[in-house]
């Protein structure tokens, strides 16, 4: 029982990170219908920015700020910085392609992905970095329910992921922006005709999408996973998958998909095989695609001739 509990906690934290990445995919897809293949690399940049902020604030060991404040600044700077990067990417790699076929942005995105990875390697060197939170947050800090331990970093990450998701849904559902985003998704030209400044909306979408990826990247670092220029691919793939499982373009779908994927991955690693877990995830994906081809939360496309 406690074993299951622990695996669920593992899965939920992992899933929270996936969900944030998936949200980024879904947001961009929801508006532009493009698969932003560079998203995983944007996440990588976010993780690096967090790392450098940590260094700037005195590194893992000599920080002159209280830990919560330091973490807050890490998130804030990384999210804003990466968000701006998202805007720049959109401006240069995607905007010129708005009117071309759907495949062109895909290649452009691959190009951006290669660019980001190698620029990161050039600027930050190829070494793998670590946030090394253990030197300022004791690994033993946290609480346990029975045998299930939830350490403080994990808790922070979980709470923060949910707060961000909640904030995002409010932003999309309660503001004009959300409606505009959907309108752009359906018919960009028609949206323009309604007076929607699509450049602005798309800019915001990319900002938020990249900022969420950055948050995921910082969380990843806090959870003690290495930071390197090639780190974006797998989480990118998982986030993408999560978005599809949830129904790409759907915000609750991305969240549910991310969490589900995280939990399934933890459980298959915990009970079945530690190195075949992707295979089981694939089965899950196939099953979802067969039963609900538009994802768990996706709407059926209207067929009308």
């Amino acid at each position: 029982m406690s074993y299951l509990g622990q695996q669920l906690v593992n899965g939920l934290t992992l899933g929270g990170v996936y969900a944030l990445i998936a949200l980024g995919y879904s947001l961009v897809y929801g508006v532009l219908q493009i698969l932003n293949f560079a998203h995983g690399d944007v996440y990588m940049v976010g993780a690096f920015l967090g790392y450098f902020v940590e260094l700037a604030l005195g590194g893992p060991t000599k920080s002159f700020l209280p830990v919560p404040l330091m973490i807050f600044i890490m998130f804030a700077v990384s999210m804003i910085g990466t968000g701006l990067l998202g805007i720049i990417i959109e401006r240069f790699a995607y905007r010129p392609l708005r009117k071309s076929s759907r495949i062109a942005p895909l290649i452009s995105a691959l190009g951006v992905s290669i660019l980001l990875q190698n620029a990161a390697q050039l600027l930050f060197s190829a070494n793998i970095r670590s946030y090394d939170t253990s030197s300022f947050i004791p690994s033993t800090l946290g609480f346990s329910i029975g045998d299930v331990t939830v350490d403080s970093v994990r808790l922070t990450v979980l709470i923060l992921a949910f707060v961000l998701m909640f904030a995002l849904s409010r932003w999309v559902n309660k503001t004009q922006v959300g409606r505009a985003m959907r309108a752009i998704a359906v018919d960009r030209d028609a949206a323009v005709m309604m007076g929607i400044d699509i450049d602005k909306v798309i800019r915001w979408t990319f900002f938020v999408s990249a900022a969420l990826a950055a948050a995921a990247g910082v969380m990843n670092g806090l959870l003690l996973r290495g930071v390197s220029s090639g780190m974006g691919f797998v989480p990118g793939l998982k986030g993408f998958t999560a978005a599809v499982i949830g129904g790409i373009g759907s915000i609750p779908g991305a969240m549910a998909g991310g969490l589900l994927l995280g939990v399934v991955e933890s459980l298959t690693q915990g009970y079945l095989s530690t190195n075949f877990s992707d295979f089981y995830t694939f089965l899950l994906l196939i099953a979802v695609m067969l039963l609900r081809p538009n994802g768990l939360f996706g709407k059926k496309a209207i067929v009308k001739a």
Partner: protein
Amino acid sequence: MTEQTTPENLGIGTDEWVAQHEKRLSRRAGLLGIVDFLNQKVSPLVRYLLLAIFAVGFGALVHNLYLLRIAANLAVFLALTLGLNVVMGFAGLLDLGFVAFFGFGAYAYALTSSAQLNQHWPTYLSVPAIVITTAFLGYLVSLPSRRLFGDYLAIVTLFFGQVFIQLIISSDSITFPGHEDSVDITGGSNGIPGLDQFKLFGYTFKTITDYYWLLLVVVALLLVAITRVDRTRVGRAWRTVREDPLASQSMGIKVNNLKMLAFIVGAAIAGLCGTIYAAIQNAVFINGFDMPLLTLIYAAVILGGSGSIPGSILGAFVMSVLPEILRVQNYSEILFLTVLILAVAALSKGWKRFGFNASLVILLGLLVKVISSALSLATTPTSTWAVGPVSKALKYWLLMPANRILWGNIAFVLLIALIANYSIAKERVKFYLLPLIAFIAIFVWEVRLVIEPNTTRQLIIGMMLVVLMIVRPQGFLGKTRVEVL
């Protein structure tokens, strides 16, 4: 009431527009215009003939093993590109698991022709069997994909590719029920070395040249076959599926079957390529069948022009030869400077401005050098950095700071920021920005990029993909698509 022409030739109501279609085309100028023009005017037969002559001549005259190996790789890559062009270009299916079929073919060949499982099938048996099996695998993958379209298909196939890799890596210690010890099937991350050579018609393929000729034949046959299919019944039907599946279905075309057929054809071609590739390499390793290759194939298809067969050829050439050229520092330096000069020339709009800009860049370099020596900043001795012929000349002009990495990084970030700024700046600002950007670009190249040729190579490829898509989204030889109306 004002009539702007005489009433007789008002022609009101006549459908004259299409008649004037040709007349209203304003021809594109410059390099791209020439591409368009050549694309339309040079007959395919001539094009292919030239290509064939070149390919045969290459095989007959070149004996450098490395060049032949590159050529053989190119041929495999080209065949793969043609295969993907069927799936994605013709039928419009986003198959991101395409390389898995390639890998499957390679591994299947390795398993049937090596000491790994102690199987040594004759080539005339193993290759056809593998092609058929790969096609069948393609069929299986396409099953769940039947109901999927566009991007959903993309993710399923992408994941399929990743799972394939994982299965191969992990199948080096499979314990079958009822057995104690695990068996090594695929060699896992160690791969399978020591494969049998092809043996066809009593001839054993030993050298890379042998394989080069074999590949030439395979590619030529593929080209003919695919071109024919494209022009006839099935090819047309594929295009209708890509264009509008619902309408296609209403015209009696079984959309799902055609999608699956495309998938299967693509898989079979990839499988065939896999066998040959494995034999050439004399070994198989899983890393080669991952994202980087997929990216390159996609880039080749799309850069060339999705759906266009000559485009695929061109794309394959660029995407497989360019990275090799960029490996050689001197070439990449010359290439870089040429492109930079061309870009500045194009953006200058006019030779006068170009001359002005060029002299400004030169002046800027001297100025920086003079100022820095006046401030007696530390510099690197020029003898240690000038490697290529170009940089030997540049060293009298360009400042080389002592801490190359730091200054190089700063300049790199600055360069990106400036380029970003440039494209949204006003004309007047652009005027001053251009020489500045050109100078910093040269600085970054010589100071920072030259010492990391490999990262630079990747950076250039990435940059090229983005820029080419922006300049020519339909690819070199692709047709502009009208998506919706």
